């Protein structure tokens, strides 16, 4: 098609606008595009963390709702499996002053601070969690958080398998301790209610990450 000369200005203008749009698009794409790193937030990564959270929360809930008894009982004095794990750990370590780590051997859990302390292999919590590391390759730490009578918050380690990665997740469950649960004279967890049979509230914190 042959155009007369007076149409050339319009075409140049459209061409200029199109060129500008192209340059702008390239600039936007370049600025928006980033490299994918292990720390990049993606839906897949969030999904994995969500699965970890659900798994950990379900395990703690299940342990906390299961009475530590050979037969079913509704006796409120019978502790749950989770509580039994905490109180046994307190009582066999002289008041909850020892950490344990997974040794990936027949010894299973070994003490990190005092080798003369009995192992926590038989505790329901330790037993259940060992399945995670053996079957799924998921590492975990267990910490116990509590407060003193003045409201100050403390954290103590129970199972420690190293510093968690940036993609770790933490779930928790609260457990009430009673005077009759604590057999040690010196316990890192103090009695916040001396006038009653209530002892203290602890938060069992389970941190998990994919190795």
């Amino acid at each position, binding site marked *: 098609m042959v*155009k007369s000369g007076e149409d050339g200005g319009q075409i140049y203008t459209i061409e200029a606008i199109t060129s500008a749009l192209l340059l702008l*698009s390239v600039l936007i794409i370049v600025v928006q595009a980033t490299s994918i790193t292990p720390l990049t937030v993606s*839906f897949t990564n*969030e999904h994995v963390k969500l699965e970890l959270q659900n798994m950990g929360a379900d395990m703690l809930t299940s342990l906390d709702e299961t009475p530590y008894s050979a037969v079913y009982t509704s006796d409120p004095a019978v502790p749950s499996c989770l509580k039994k794990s905490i109180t046994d750990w307190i009582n066999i370590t002289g008041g909850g002053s020892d950490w344990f780590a997974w040794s990936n051997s027949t010894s299973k859990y070994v003490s990190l601070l005092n080798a003369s302390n009995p192992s926590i292999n038989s505790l329901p919590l330790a037993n259940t969690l060992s399945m995670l590391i053996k079957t799924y390759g998921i590492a975990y730490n267990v910490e116990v958080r509590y407060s003193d009578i003045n409201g100050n918050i403390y954290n103590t380690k129970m199972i420690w398998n190293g510093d968690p990665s940036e993609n770790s997740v933490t779930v*928790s469950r609260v457990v*009430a301790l009673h005077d009759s649960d604590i057999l040690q004279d010196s316990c890192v967890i103090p009695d916040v209610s001396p006038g009653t049979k209530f002892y203290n509230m602890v938060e069992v914190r389970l941190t998990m990450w994919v190795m």
Partner: protein
Amino acid sequence: MLKDLSGQLMLISAFLLAMMVVAITMMLNNVIYSSNMAYISFIDQSRYDDLSYKQATIKEAIYAEAVDRSNYNAYMQDYAKSLNNITSMRGRYVDLLTYTTSSGPLSNTKTRTELSISGKNSNISYVIYTGYNSQASPGPSPSPTMAFNVTISANKTSMYNDSTDTVKLVITVTDANTSLPASNFVLDIITDRGTSPTAYIYDDGGTNSNPPYLVTDLSGTKIVYYIDKNSTIGTAHIHATAKLNNSSTESYLSNVIEISVTSPSSTNLCSHIINISGTPAIDNIPGKGNDYKITVTFNIGPFSNLNIYPIIDKTSTTIAYDNNPSYNNATKQLTVNVYPERDSNFKLVIKMDITGYCTVDKVNVSRTATLNITGDKHSINASLTYT
């Protein structure tokens, strides 16, 4: 100057079309992507924490009631404080409000615990009922503001002091504020007639005679039968106390009822006795097969419900008699028709059990009278003896 710009125009058009396709694709992609994106609520794990707090509170309320009931309020306050120390690190605040109640559809005394978990964008409340439905697991002591009304009533005001006579006692416990029945209250019925079981016993229906404790049912009521065995006659003053449970130190008093206790063997059982006329009336002259009509009259006096139950003992076959003796209610007369058949002697004995209720002394009395009729075709004798 002429230029052929058609190629340039087509190229620009192609660029514009390509850009439009890219833009539309991205727009559609965003629409589809956002529709299938996981919202933050899907991965919100705070519900696990809230449920954990709720479950722990339930367990502690049950434990405190069962093990540390006397310090229940202090126990739960310290629990809530300790729990808050932990939850505050997560931006959660837990509030507990506990009090006992005896009202509600189940009418059981129990503890109502209101648990509120407040967060930045949420406020969840749970109402937890704990308590006891039986004597085995009693609840905590009531707060001083609670009050209950206890009433006791009897079905009569006098009785015999033997095991055959009972007085029905109805004890009712209600909430003073709501008038709703209060069940599972432990009752103690107190009388000044001596020591149980020598002087008296309570029978709650035969299955649990003289029980160690009495408990109100779901209607807040307990029915027992009082049996007085004290040999001394007099007046029994009876009242009841109600407690929330066996170990409770706070009890609620009822009104006092009076029951006159008399002895069935006493001559002073009733100042009025059933008066029977001494001589039966014979209204016909014997002879030639005429019948005799013998009437015995009873004075009603102060008695009500006077009943006569004649039992005829025919000891001779020489007579015929009306074996349906009648008596009218106005005069309480017993009439017997005798029909001598031959010259031989005849004998008829009619035993009468007479019972009545003395409206003056408010006791049941009874007498036994015997009507002896002898004679032959020419004569007849009738005599009345009674005890």
